[in-house]
Structures are given as C-alpha cells and as structure tokens.
C-alpha cells in the first residue's frame, strides 16, 4: 500500500507555546488512522495542518505526493476538494437548510441543477441513515443528527480522504456507536482513507486500522490497536487504560 498522507518533522507554535515539536506520521491509502492524545496535546492543530488551515512553522506535509504547505490561494482551495472533514460540532451553516448544507460543495463547484443536487443530497443523507429532513434547518436537529448531516456533507464531493475531528464527543453511547458504524461503513463502501482524532478509546479501537499516540507534540507510538494494548511505554499505557496516576499526570504536576 502506498502512502497517502505523510507528515515529516512538523513543528508548530502559537506565540510562545510550542504545540507540535517534530511530528512524524504516515497514513497509508485506504487505511483508517486514529490519533489519540489528551486534551491540548495538539490533535486539532495536527488536523488543521493536514488540510492546510494552518501552516506549519517547520517540516513538510505531503498529500498524494504534493507538498500542501507550498500551495496557496486557488491551488490550495482546489486541493482541498480531495478532503472531507467532519467537525467536532458539525459546523453546519445555520443559514442554509439541511439539503443545501449537504449539497453546498456541489452548489458551489458544479453546474448541476438544483433538483439534481437535491437528489444527490438526499442520497448522501440516506447513506448516513437520515430520511425526510431535507428542508429542516440545522437548529431543528439533535446533536447526533447534526453530526450525521455533517458527515453527509463531508462525503458529498466523494473525497479520497476523510478527516474526523472527535466524531463521538458529546454524543450518547448509542449514537456514538452509530457514528462508529458509519465511519466503518464509509471506509468499506467508498474506500476512503481517513484520519481521526479522538480521546474516546472505545471508538478508537473500533474504527482504527492503526493507532498513534500524540504526546507533547510528537507521535510516541504507532501500531495496530492490539499492539498498543500490550505496550511497554508507560505513557501510552496510562492513556489507553485511562488512569489518573502515571507519567502523564506526574509531568503535569511538575509543570
């Protein structure tokens, strides 16, 4: 399998705060990579760098052989069509109805008629298990529905890569599992490579082909979920077992 996304020695800091300090990560074509890490470990920053919303201070981000941090303006915009991103809060446009949200990229980038786009939007909504809500506004939806509509929007342009930003955060356990199932379904049916960031270990084990742990701005371990479970690294062990005592919390006290 070839590499679809590669991050090489990525550094990023905000003012004086160093967030990423030499991050290296490879994501293979067709795999589901899950990056886990504590709050404030730089997971969201990692994701924003991959899609070019933030520029790294140092290092390279290579997506399908192209260096994304060297692109700008229109090229970067076009490059982003390869991606679909599911935001933590859904980030649906409140001023547009559900079908306009799902069909947004199609409305903007294609010459299809409104009826065709509406039909396509319904088809994508059907894929995430939602029917008959095309004309509702985002404010009328529940949290789980919003996430699913956002997922439908992310796959509307049939991207090669999907980015999931904490897909299960803020959902009840059943809805969280529905989302997990959907992520697996997307991978199988559309053959999409994906990068997920989460701190929900249950979800991570379920959807990951490989997992990586982000700590203090670096990836400290990468491997299949089974391998991470029998890790000898005390930091990874503390995180995946969810214990309050261990090297991570000790470090916090030292700060």
């Amino acid at each position, binding site marked *: 399998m070839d590499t679809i996304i590669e991050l090489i020695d990525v550094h990023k800091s905000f003012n004086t705060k160093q967030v990423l300090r030499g991050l290296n990560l490879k994501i293979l074509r067709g795999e589901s990579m899950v990056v886990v890490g504590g709050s404030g470990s730089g997971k969201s920053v990692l994701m924003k760098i991959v899609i070019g919303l933030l520029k790294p201070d140092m290092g390279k981000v290579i997506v399908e052989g192209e260096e994304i941090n060297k692109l700008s303006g*229109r090229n970067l915009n076009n490059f982003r069509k390869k991606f679909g991103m599911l935001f933590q809060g859904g980030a649906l446009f409140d001023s547009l109805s559900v079908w306009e949200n799902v069909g947004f990229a199609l409305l903007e980038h294609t010459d299809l008629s409104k009826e065709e786009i509406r039909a396509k939007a319904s088809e994508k909504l059907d894929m995430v298990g939602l029917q008959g809500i095309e004309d509702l506004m985002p404010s009328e939806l529940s949290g789980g529905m919003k996430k699913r509509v956002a997922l439908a929007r992310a796959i509307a342009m049939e991207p090669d890569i999907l980015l999931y930003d904490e897909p299960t955060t803020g959902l009840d356990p059943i809805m969280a599992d529905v989302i997990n199932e959907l992520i697996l379904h997307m991978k199988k049916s559309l053959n999409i490579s994906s990068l997920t960031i989460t701190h929900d270990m249950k979800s991570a084990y379920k959807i990951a082909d490989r997992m990586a742990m982000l700590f203090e701005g670096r990836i400290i371990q990468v491997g299949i979920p089974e391998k991470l479970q029998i890790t000898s690294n005390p930091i990874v062990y503390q995180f995946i077992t969810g214990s309050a005592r261990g090297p991570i919390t000790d470090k916090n006290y030292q700060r």
Partner: protein
Amino acid sequence: MKIKEKLTSTDQKGKRSILEDIGRFFYTFLSEAGEIFILLCQAFFWLFRAPLKWKITLKQMGEVGVNSVPVTLITATFTGMVLALQSYIGFKRFNAETMVGTVVALSMVRELGPVLTGLIVAGRAGSEMAAELGTMKVTEQIDALYTLAVDPIHYLIVPRILAGIIMLPVLTILADFIGIAGGYLLSIKVLKANPVIYMRRTFDHMELSDIYIGLLKSSCFGLIISTVGCHKGLSTEGGAEGVGKATTGAVVLSSMLILISDYILTALLF
C-alpha cells in the same frame, strides 16, 4: 535586605509594564489597521477573480438597507424637526427666520444625513455582521467553508462590503428627504412659516455638489461599517464572550472611524 530586593524588583516590573502597555497598545492598533487593510485588499481582488455571488449580495443589501429603513426614518424625521426648531430660535434673534429652510436643507444633505445614517447603520447592521461572522468563526463554520474549497472572503465578505457601499447612499437619500420634510412640516404647522418662501429658501441655495458630497461620504461610511464588521467577526476568538466583544468592538470602532473620516472627507471635498 530580601524585602528591599523584592520591592525594587516589583518597581522595575511596574515601570516596564507601563512601557509594555504603551507598546502593546500601538502594536495592537497597528496590527489591526494592517489586518483591516489586508482584508480590504483581498476583498478587492476577489471582486475581479471570481463571479460575484449575486444572491448573497442582494440578501445582504436587504439586511443592511431595507431592514435599516425604519430606524433611519425615525432618526431623520426628528433630526429635521429639531434642526428647524433650533435654527428658528437662533435666527429669530436677528429677524432671519426665513433662512431656516436653507439651514435645515444644507445641514441634512451635507452633514447630518450621511453621518447619522452611518452611525445608525453601524449600530444595526455592522454589529449584526460582526455577531453573525463571529458565531460562524467560533462554531468552525468558517473553517468548514475552507474545507469545502470555498473562500470565505469571496463567499461572505465581498457581498457584505458591496452591500454597505451601495446601500448607505440609498439610505442617506431617504434620510435627506425625510429630514427636510420633517423640518418643513414643523416650520409650516408649528412655527407658522410661509410654505412658498420656505420651499424657495430650501432649494435656492442648494447645489448638486452638496448632494454628491453627502452621498460620497455615506458610501465611504458604508465601506467602513461593513469592513470593520467583517474584520471583527472573522477575528473573533473565545466562544460567546468573544462574539460579544467582537460586536461591541465593531460598533465602537466603526463609529469612531465614521466621525474621524467625516472630518477628513469634508476638509478634502470642501
């Protein structure tokens, strides 16, 4: 000894922090001015780089223009009436009551029409832009636009700036007319002025350039209101509190810039 050391060190800290504050103030002022300028340049380039979003522009024109009509009407009516009343009281002292019409018309068209409309719209539409874009920013909708390969400058900012530039003069024409009408009605009905003489005084001394200058000024105010509103919205950070700050900031900054640029423009266009 130790206490003394502590004291001197806090002293130094205190001094440094004043200088720091001054420096920080100029730093934020300059960087904000720069950001607004860059936003304006980007909007200008997008205006020619891609076809205009007509539907959104028309919607924003409604938002800025049509929805501001009631407040503009009320403001202009009362301003015209109070102008007539005040200048009547003044002119009566040297028997020049007939000049009231001239003063009301010139003040409305050259100064009060554009400026008061600008201030009212800054409070109504400028704050709305900052609040709406600010909420979109903190809920990641702006980032979502980028990920869907749509540039927020093209999709959100250009329509709003255009709406400001186009609709402010329209509202100003309305305010000019209603203000003059308000002054006329008050003079005729309450102060018992002669309608024919009043009308003649109103239009005899007015030149077309008075109206042009007023409209040109109002167009500049429209640019200020929408650019500042958009800038404050897009630079929002930190949840609901940030949106509140952005909204207040937009109204305060655009109101100040309107008053300052009003003086500069009037001096230049004399």
